[in-house]
């Protein structure tokens, strides 16, 4: 084997495996990796959550306002009364309670709500959405919290939607939905 075709891809041309120089280079690499790791860990220490929200949704809604968009789709969401009602509305209310958040409702069509969410005007979307929703590129979906079978015999895996990339908030919601969502 050619000695330079090594782990370091010719970066250290005189470093053959098993030589003293190889050991020194290896130590250098390990030292750099350690520095990187420590740096990453101290960065982790700076953020309150890991994973973190690029836009800080979880921190903002905790003891604050949770802006929820809802589309009519019974039995999950009903917007016929003065206040939204239904299974998913109840779940969101319970979730808001765990965060000490007050809910601010917006009711509109899904398309309208997704646009609002893309512009950062909403934190959470509900309305009987499933894993296969057409909006999955524009919004972030939770894990399915419930399965139902529709009139055509197809299984539907129900999800809620959050702003793309708000991973701390999403994980918080996922943990809530997986621990209590299934039972309601």
């Amino acid at each position, binding site marked *: *084997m*050619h000695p330079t*075709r090594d*782990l370091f*891809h010719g970066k250290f041309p005189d470093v053959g495996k098993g030589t003293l120089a190889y050991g020194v280079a290896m130590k250098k690499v390990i030292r750099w990796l350690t520095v990187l790791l420590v740096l*990453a860990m101290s*960065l*982790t220490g700076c*953020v309150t959550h*890991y*994973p*973190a*929200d*690029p836009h800080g949704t979880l921190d903002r809604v905790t003891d604050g306002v949770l802006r929820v968009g809802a589309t009519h789709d019974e039995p999950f969401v009903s917007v016929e009364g003065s206040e939204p009602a239904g299974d998913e509305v109840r779940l969101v209310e319970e979730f808001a309670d765990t965060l000490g958040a007050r809910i601010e409702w917006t009711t509109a069509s899904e398309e309208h709500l997704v646009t609002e969410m893309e512009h950062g005007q909403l934190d959470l979307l509900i309305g009987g959405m499933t894993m296969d929703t057409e909006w999955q590129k524009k919004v*972030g*979906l*939770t*894990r399915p919290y419930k399965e139902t079978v529709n009139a055509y015999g197809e299984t539907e895996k129900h999800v809620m939607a*959050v*702003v*793309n*990339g*708000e*991973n*701390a908030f*999403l*994980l918080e*919601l*996922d*943990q809530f939905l*997986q*621990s209590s969502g299934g039972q309601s």
Partner: protein
Amino acid sequence: MKRMASPADDEHLPDEISRAVKKAVRLEWATLGVLSVTVVLVFLVMGNSQAMKTAWIEDMLSMVPPIAFLIGVRVTRKPANAKHPFGYHRAIGIAHLVAGTALFVMGGYLIVDALIKLITVEHPTIGGINLFGHTIWLGWLMILVLLVTGIPPVILGRMKLKLAEPLHNKVLYADADMNKADWMTSFAAIVGIAGIGLGLWWADAAAAIVIATSIVKDGATNLSAAVSGLMDARPTTVDNKKPHPLISDAQEFLRNLDWVHAATVRLRDEGQVFQIEGFVIPASLELATPERLEAAENALLEQDWKIRDVVIAPVTHLPNVVESD
């Protein structure tokens, strides 16, 4: 005058070479097995990470060179016949070309794909996953899978690299070299996912670009090697760095024949074996008897298993394209 190793000689490689071929075949099957498991595992945890998606496609593409090698080895074993008078050795070159093209095109596509994500400021979403009744961040599982699947290819790559040189098989070499660098792909993807965790939405796409760039580089290396092989460029060592030593060896051999005044050779790299065309100016014309030419051809064939096909022509002046100093 044309001399070839007899068809049966295909199976009569020197012992250590045929052992090396068998070992390489086993290693390539092992690589395919490892890659299949990797592709399934990575797919299961891939989520919305662009870096992970890129690493996944790279894992799938990494199957092309081993498949090319396995097909190449099988096809080149077929003896030459009237329809294929030069045998089937070029199959390796074709396989190499296909592998290089696949890598190059796919790498380019993945760079564009990741750039679009950066330009459109797409924030990758990675939520929770249920594991033994707990909901944990999927990113941790991704990192774990990348760590576990990143190691075996490196080991296999190093083992294959040792065989590529004696076998003079460039597909095997390129494949081994890619495997050996595989840990960098896993490392880049891990950095990307860890970056998402820190709230750095761009880290993922940036890592994807790093991985895709390495795929393009692999593709370009393979393509240029395959093309120069198919263009009958001067044979080189497997790493494409130096002219192959057999060129000067064959030339020296012919020049040192006592009835030869001047000689030169040109070689074709047929993938795993060489074909030699020799040109000799005899000291005097009547010395270039068929018997002497045949003896020289046979001697060259016996010099190295890589020499599969020799033609020596007596000439009055040497072709000036090949160095005849």
